[in-house]
């Protein structure tokens, strides 16, 4: 039994495995497979100011080793969350990252103001949703820094900013979030991708493009996590295509303090639990007493 505890964002994560936003709802469903307290933490579905019905049409399709989706941020809105979901989540003995999404600054701030009144422990600011109309804040350094700072000024809660991978300079973007006052950065969100039905000559998703996730994107996610971790001093939460303990360990060695597991759970509902157990086993097998030794341990050429 290695020590898997990681302290970031002002909280102890009993292990470095967090469920990623959007694949895990508000925890109620997968709890029927395993107790949430087994997890280091979980990020909630991206929650907006008002209830959203989300995208029309088909919302998901498979690609080689990955999937393409467009949920359009269906969610019940922040008030419902605060009233009906958060209290339940707070009883679960795991770290809850409230993932927050909006299409403009005012909306973000209104959500933050509401959360500030609650015991929600950590905010994950999603500035990278690939399925909202308009450019997300996460695609430029200046808007990343601006929105981070605006939110930072309104909340005392630990704040991680979820970055977009649809950029050419992820290190710079991570720095901008750090400059804006983020306590950590989470990356990557899904990559913008597309699929066309050649028979109907229509994009498969109503939004034309959508979020591309899964094992397929892991090499890109790992490279971006490595670049971001090298660029900033705040912790990095590594996300993207993680489906095994080996993937998780690569992310951690690249510089992630914790990892978030996303759509791998669709294939295997026990994926996060297996990853936790296997990380533990690997540490034991390799004489690693404390997972913190591995964070950023990669030795570049």
């Amino acid at each position: 039994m290695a020590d898997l505890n990681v302290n970031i964002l002002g909280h102890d994560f009993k292990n470095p495995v967090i469920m990623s936003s959007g694949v895990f709802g508000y925890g109620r469903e997968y709890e029927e497979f395993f107790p949430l307290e087994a997890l280091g933490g979980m990020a909630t579905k991206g929650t907006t100011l008002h209830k959203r019905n989300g995208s029309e049409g088909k919302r998901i399709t498979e690609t080689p080793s990955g999937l393409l989706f467009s949920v359009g941020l269906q969610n019940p809105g922040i008030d419902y969350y605060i009233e009906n979901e958060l209290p339940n989540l707070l009883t679960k003995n795991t770290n809850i990252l409230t993932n927050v999404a909006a299409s403009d600054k005012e909306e973000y701030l209104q959500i933050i103001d509401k959360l500030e009144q609650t015991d929600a422990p950590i905010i994950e600011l999603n500035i990278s949703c690939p399925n909202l109309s308009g450019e997300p804040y996460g695609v430029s350094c200046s808007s990343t820094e601006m929105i981070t700072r605006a939110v930072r000024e309104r909340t005392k809660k630990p704040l991680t900013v979820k970055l977009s991978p649809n950029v050419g300079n992820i290190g710079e973007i991570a720095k901008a979030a750090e400059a804006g006052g983020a306590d950590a950065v989470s990356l990557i969100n899904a990559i913008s991708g597309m699929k066309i039905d050649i028979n109907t000559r229509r994009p498969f998703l109503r939004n034309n493009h959508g979020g591309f996730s899964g094992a397929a994107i892991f090499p890109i996610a790992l490279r971006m996590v490595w670049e971001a971790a090298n660029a900033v001093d705040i912790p990095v939460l590594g996300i993207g295509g993680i489906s095994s303990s080996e993937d998780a360990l690569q992310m951690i060695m690249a510089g992630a303090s914790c990892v978030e597991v996303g759509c791998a759970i669709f294939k295997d509902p026990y994926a996060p639990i297996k990853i936790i157990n296997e990380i533990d086993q690997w540490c034991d097998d390799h004489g690693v007493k404390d997972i913190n030794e591995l964070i950023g341990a990669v030795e570049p050429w």
Partner: protein
Amino acid sequence: MKERIEMKYTQGFYPIIGKENLSRDIFSLTICCHEISSLAVPGQFVHIALPGHSLRRPISISSIDREAHTIRIIFAVKGTGTKDLSCLNVGNTIDIVGPLGNGFTLLGKDKKVILIGGGIGTPPMAAMASYYGENAHVISGFRDKTMVILQDEFKRYTPNTYVCTEDGSEGIKGFVTMPLEELLKKEHFDMVYACGPIPMLKAVAQVTERYDTPCEVSMEQHMGCGIGACLVCTCKIKTEHGIDFRHVCKNGPVFDAREVEWNG
């Protein structure tokens, strides 16, 4: 996982003990799976993982044998996932999560019901026919006679079976709504259950509404998690507050036909 026993959902690898090729590209697998057979009700589905695929495939439970601890699924080869599924054989194990979703509302066995299956939507009606026995009238619709499946089985449960084919190559030439309407005209039925392509379900919903007969339909949608967490498998439902986006996997796949928003 020791916790699994108390949990609502089961994921496991179960042995395939029977395989049949019902017609071109349609296969039946009998799976030995106590955890699922003991809980499942008609209309629920299982979610099947296949190597090399990042998404599971939802397939209805076609029949349930609690004594033999088995369930049977029947599927058509459509794309690469169902193709791979059709390559599994007796002796292989299959990775299943289930039973998922809400089944059809079961009335008293003495109630008179109509079961409608269109194409690969017929299999779930097998479990329903086994439940209602001769009180069930089973209408099945297919493109042509080469696609017809399950009629012998239906006939074992009930004398009241009707086959429609689009080209008239077997049974009634035309759509399932023809015998449906005739039955509803003649007699009172307590419920109509339907599974099949959307245009068929929509037509059935219109007819049953006209005859003021309760109707439940089983809907399809592309899925991620299969349990209600990821919100990708939408079905538009009419509510007092307008249209709401519900989810086929958790709120369905069976919906009250009157609540479904058929336009979009």
